């Protein structure tokens, strides 16, 4: 609906003002604080990527962390090569790798790295999606297959120590230089780079959900069979949204590596993947903006609370998830929507109550009007 588009654009504008002006101001333009916040924004992108496949199309991808990890490793490989100069990356020496593996060579180029960080996740996601959706696999089986892929993928990454750095991941990275600008991750400009990426990702997400493509995805989510009888190739639609979602996750992964200055196989862990689902659910999977905000809120809480409750935090996160699923299945976004409706109804009722006595003396007239 146009009103819905207006509502979404308004929300985007408010969100942009908060992120671009509000947050840096609150943090006193402190580079260190903003670096932490940039981390939340990067995670917001992966959360909104999940909202596209899970919220729009009803495909719960529990392997989102795998595509996130691919992006993060792509960026880390580039920065590791830069840090190593002409020499072999240090960990390869420790693992008796004689020369740079073929797969690493193109990552010398930043252009290739950026493309690979988007396209490799999209390709892998698309491949899995094609096998699943051509076979008309749906519902919980999508979650199981993607989860199984994630576990297998993380195992391979840890196993291939000579290429991936194994359990340690890729550390000791050089700073990124982008068009002659050396990115200092503790500078305000870096925060704006990540914030800009998040805004761009939200815009992509909003465009998709408001296009006819997004409408067909919602139709597929509700009744895939009915949609086939209208001539839509449901498997293709599902595959494309899976690819886009994976590419956005890869994008988020690249930024995440920049923020933290290392890539680790924990980015591809089951717990991280489930955390993405929780952020998305808390924010509200029906809206890409809400999903991003969900990631920011939960991570903000985690940042504050996990220092206090080191062991208890995961338990609290689990409880939050259960409560959200039980009581606000459509997340904060749904809750706000319901409250808004309730308030509207309340004021309508009040107005009706106030108007009633005035109408009573002339019931005949109001009848005639009809």
């Amino acid at each position, binding site marked *: 609906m146009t009103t819905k588009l207006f509502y979404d654009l308004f929300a985007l504008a408010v969100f942009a003002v908060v992120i671009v002006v509000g947050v840096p101001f609150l943090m006193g333009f402190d580079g260190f604080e903003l670096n932490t916040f940039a981390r939340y924004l990067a995670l917001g992108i992966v959360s909104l990527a999940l909202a596209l496949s899970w919220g729009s199309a009803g495909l719960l991808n529990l392997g989102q962390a795998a595509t996130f990890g691919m992006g993060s490793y792509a960026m880390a490989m580039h920065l590791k090569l830069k840090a190593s100069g002409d020499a072999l990356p240090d960990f390869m020496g420790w693992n008796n790798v004689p020369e740079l593996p073929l797969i690493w060579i193109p990552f010398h180029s930043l252009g290739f790295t950026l493309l690979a960080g988007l396209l490799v996740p999209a390709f892998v996601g698309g491949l899995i999606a094609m096998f699943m959706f051509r076979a008309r696999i749906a519902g919980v089986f999508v979650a199981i297959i993607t989860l199984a892929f994630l576990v297998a993928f993380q195992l391979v990454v840890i196993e291939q120590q000579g290429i991936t750095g194994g359990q340690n991941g890729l550390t000791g990275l050089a700073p990124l230089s982008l068009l002659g600008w050396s990115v200092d991750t503790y500078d305000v400009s870096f925060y704006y780079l990540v914030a800009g990426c998040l805004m761009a990702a939200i815009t992509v997400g909003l465009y998709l959900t408001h296009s*006819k493509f997004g409408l067909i995805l919602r139709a597929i989510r*509700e009744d895939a069979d009915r949609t086939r009888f209208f001539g839509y190739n449901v498997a293709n639609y599902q595959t494309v949204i899976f690819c886009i979602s994976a590419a956005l996750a890869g994008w988020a992964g690249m930024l995440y590596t920049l923020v933290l200055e290392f890539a680790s196989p924990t980015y591809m862990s089951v717990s991280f993947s489930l955390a993405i689902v929780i952020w998305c659910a808390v924010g509200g999977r029906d809206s890409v903006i809400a999903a991003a905000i969900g990631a920011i809120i939960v991570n903000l809480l985690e940042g504050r609370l996990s220092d206090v409750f080191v062991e208890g935090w995961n338990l609290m996160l689990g409880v939050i998830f259960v409560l959200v699923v039980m009581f606000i299945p459509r997340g904060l976004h749904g809750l706000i929507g319901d409250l808004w409706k309730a308030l509207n109804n309340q004021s309508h009722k009040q107005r009706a109550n106030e108007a009633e006595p005035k109408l009573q003396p002339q019931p005949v007239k109001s009848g005639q009007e009809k």
Partner: protein
Amino acid sequence: MAQLQVTDLHVDFGGLRAVDGLSFNVNEGEILCLLGPNGAGKSTTLDLICGKTQPTSGSIRFEGTDISQLLEFRRARLGIGRKFQVPSVYKELTVAENLSVARSRSPGIWHALTRFSLSDGRVAAPILERVGLEARASEIAGNLSHGETQWLEIAMLIAQDSRLILMDEPTAGMTIQETARTAEIFRSLSTSHTLIVVEHDMSFVRTVADRIVVMNRGAMLAEGTIEEIETNDDVKTAYLGH
């Protein structure tokens, strides 16, 4: 040549012969009514034509192409639309969005990616007017009454604009007035569409049917105009059990 040719169609559901050697033709612009007692295989026949069910043997030719092995979305693209017995509209979408989904002349992804979700508004408005839902365009379909839901699905089929439309009990749950209006719409549709209608309401059948096929136990029992069917002894036996 007939638009749809069904030849010696069989389908087994784990030993149950739901359709057993059925053959019939449908001509372009015709309204064919499928009649028969419960379990005669009428809905299954529609399922076979639209691709919801795969036949065990036999052939279905639509405009000269053998479609019996095609996936359902390919048959839809060839020009076959289906209305189900239980109204199946998208309850979470608005009425206008339902029509936009149904308007599937270009079902490809690229087309969908480059259009806004309600880009078919100009097509939708007159169709909604035709079924009397113009005031409900932005209503969530789940909030419609049963009758309105039936209308919406009919509107969706008009928007889809298939050359062959399969209707499974389109007037179920409608009032007499609504049924009459449906009959009117069907008559006007048949100028540019072919319709196969499964229906129990005999007065409705009498109004719309050009031709009738009576099925019993998965096979054709009789075929002809309404007068021929009403005087057919086999039909009387099948319905009354003598």
